[in-house]
């Protein structure tokens, strides 16, 4: 059970949160400009790295806010937590 530091509420048990998958996937501004393969990439393809991974989490049983978590998928250590719209502490997230 992870202990997740919500940027609004502080450290809380994982069971209070919902994981929203990989962070920094932007919805294409003009979906029509994408062919089917690229649209499918946006829809379905997600990174599954061994090591550092940036994810979206929502404190759904707390303040209800979404934020970003950088988590090590091997050790489950939380490297950093930052609010929506903020740049990732360790480098660009685009």
């Amino acid at each position, binding site marked *: *059970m*992870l*202990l997740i530091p919500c940027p609004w509420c502080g450290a809380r*048990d994982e069971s209070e949160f*919902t994981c*929203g998958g990989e962070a920094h996937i*932007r*919805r294409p501004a003009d*979906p*029509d400009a*994408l062919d*089917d393969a690229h*649209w499918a990439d946006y*829809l379905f393809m997600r990174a599954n790295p061994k090591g550092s991974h940036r994810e*979206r989490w*929502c404190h*759904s049983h707390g303040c*209800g*806010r*979404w934020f970003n978590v950088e988590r090590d998928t091997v*050790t*489950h250590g939380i490297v950093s937590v930052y609010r*929506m*719209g903020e740049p990732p502490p360790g480098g660009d997230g685009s």
Partner: protein
Amino acid sequence: MTGQPYRLAEGGAIDRSRPVGFSFDGRRYTGFAGDTLASALLANGVTLVGRSFKYHRPRGILSAGTEEPNALVQLGTGARGIANAKATRVELHEGLVASSVNCWPGPRCDLGALNDLAHRLIPAGFYYKTFMWPHRGWHFYERLIRRMAGLGRAPEGADPDRYERMNAHCDVLVVGAGPAGLAAARAAARGGSRVILADERGLPGGTLPDAADTGRLGETTAELEDLDNVRILVRTTVTGYFDHNFLIALERVTDHLGPHAPAHLPRQRLWRIRAGRVVLATGALERPLVFANNDRPGIMLASAARAYVNRFAVLPGRRAVVVTDNDSAYGAALDLHRNGVEIAAVVDLRRNGEGGKPAEARAAGLQILAGHAVVDSRGRRRVRTAHVARLDDDGSLTGPVRTLSCDLIAMSGGWNPAVHLFSQAGGRLRYDEALRAFLPEGAPQAVRCAGAINGAADTASCIAQGRAAGAGEPDDRAAGRVEAASRAPWAVPARNRAGEGRRFVDFQNDVTSADIALAAREGYQSVEHLKRYTTLGMGTDQGKTGNVAGLAILAQTLGLAIPEVGTTTFRPPYDPVTFGAIAGRDVGRLADPVRRTPIHRWHEEAGAVFEDVGQWKRPFYYPQDGETKHGAVARECLAVRNAAGVMDASTLGKILVCGPDARALLNRIYTNAWDRLEAGRCRYGLMLGEDGMVLDDGVTACLAGNRFLTTTTTGNASRVFAWLEEWLQTEWPDLDVYLTSLTEQLATVALAGPNAREILAALTDDIDLEPDAFPFMAWREGRVAGLPARVFRVSYTGELSYEIVVPAGDAMDLWTALTGPEHAVTPFGTEAMHVLRAEKGYLMIGQETDGTVTPLDLDMQWILSRKKDFIGRRSLARPAMRDPLRKRLVGLETGDPATVLPEGAQILAEPPSGVPEAMIGHVTSSYWSPTLGRSIALALVQGGRDREPPTVHVPLDDRTVRASIRDPRFYDPDGVRMNG
């Protein structure tokens, strides 16, 4: 010591002034307070306590702790029955009732033992190989095998006991209250940390044999008990180690008190502990030796024999052979000897039984047979003889076999550090050749190991490591390690070429060294495959005693080093956890919240039958004097079609969407356009996932320029709210929109039927109900029955219909006014509502849709705007979405109007011919329509209404029903009634 022939007159940590009566297999015995069931049985001379799992071999007590594979017992009866309790862990209490498992009629004479005679026919994998043929045969064999297999009996009936869950936080959690754990707890506590110290035994102090040492530990315990920042949990097994130093522990609060347990205490408590740091002082578990017939009653671990004589003042036998491949068993030999057990010999597998310990034993006059091994044993219900032979340099047997008479063989095959929790925490294990053991390596989380888990063999090293770990100071992990000097074989060779006598590795699962060799020969060479093929390390003990020897034998068979073979994965729980403790108080009415509408009491008094919709209780139908469900639903439907009905629709989700960009949000979320929706008007909307699949539907009303009230289906209310929030927070933070859930603040009552206008007119004087003034899909504000209300002219039944929305507190008054006798309004439930909407061909989210259905499949192109983007639009443009083979919504009419198809029935293009055929669709909704006097159904079928020919076949259990595809709008297809 009347009745306890094996009890010593003095010594031990038992209270001779408090005799305790108990029964085992129907016979009455007496033990003392402080006994475990195992020690009390041994005191009474009971060594045969059960039968083994597969061969039904007589088995006794192997250990004195949690690792026990053999002495499993059934406790209690009925709903309080407990299967497979370990006799070595059950604390004795007055009136305890225990019995053997896995034997019939009893452990002394067990019919299942026929398996033992047939053992050559049933090696590892026997069941897999034999019962796979013929392939239909399994159904027959399975019943027989299931009856034969299994250990204890499951309790009969719901668990009557109460359990609790407790959340706890601490700076330092110390697991194990032996010398290392106590030292760690004291050091941490003295440094000011909040400490939790947990130990599975009834008293802190560990398993030290020496009384003087135990006394010193008592002082430490007393100091800890006085400190406010220390919580000591006894009878508490830390059983799971999860991420971020989150651990689960099971406290057995009253199990040891039996019927005398105070009523205010729960039976067990599940601790959920978040620790800053963890110190694992979990000790080590002794390994048995692998030799022929090493499983007879009276053969036990040397450490267990020592514990029984020292701690419980019980003689586990009167004449013992001690056999070992390391120094630790000499202590056991000396303690047994001191307490009057005759030591026939100490058999040491190592070539030169030299060094301090053997010298001490020799000085005490014990005979030491160095370079020898016990190669076999005899004795049916208790071991009678040990057979000893010399071991050659290469590990083979040489010379004559000597027979030593004995009633106890105390064995030691070395020690396994209890690394289970460390491994669960993500820690790596390193095989140490010198120690012949897997040791913890590194620190995956904020965790330290101290004491025997590190291989420390003496008390001083354990205490030093504990102190350092507790204080967070560096220590010497390697301190106190004693090399296993020998290269003694992991399995003692058989005494003759025939390989007579099975050599057990895993006692609980009856896995022998030959089974392991067989598995390796047959290709199950990965340790994980070996486990599943032979069941090595499964069962209630999870191979705590047998696993390492099993791995070593596998490695030997394959010609590999032990680290190359590795270990199977350690998973929680370390020791079985009661389901009741996991559930805690979340049972029965507390399992899940129940949501009731503000009109619930009226429904109850009216005798409504309720339906669960998510957490909501909704009236399903209202049976009147002896009506069946069918009768009630038909009456309610006809009342709505011919007069008027009311339904409590308060459970619909209601979300207030407001802010300058509210319209923009609706435009992006819903498939249709919202730019021109004026205040006072409503619109039906459909929302999709980004994959183009239908998510939810509902009506949204424009309350004022930038204020909208959106409704969702009952089951999706919180999901839709979360969905909108997610987009607003993560993707469109630039949109200035605020969402407020009003689901529970507002109540909705739907008034439907041709008389609806007339009835509503009698209850309001400030809303103009004339069709021109208040058309379909409009809403008005005013007073209804004197209550402030919003009235929405929308319809889910196809009739003229008003949904009246009032503050929740006014709902009962509104409902009472509407159902007054002067109005002749019929309350209707969700089933009538379903029938009425199906007659209209309206879709029901979750029934016609299942996450794979697009608006195109529902022939709802009309609701897809071409002028804007919306969530899911791009996905609908994929060619696959227009595949003519996609299932599309249709109406179905059965040939026989009386036949109501079951929902979920599969649909075929042709009558079934006996060979597998493609299923082209399924029935999504199906009802008897009282309005039409026939059955109706909605279905998703390949090709939809374009399908030719339009006849399909629905195979049921006993017949096949012909049906024809038609327009799903069975009733008033042009909507004349609701628009009127």
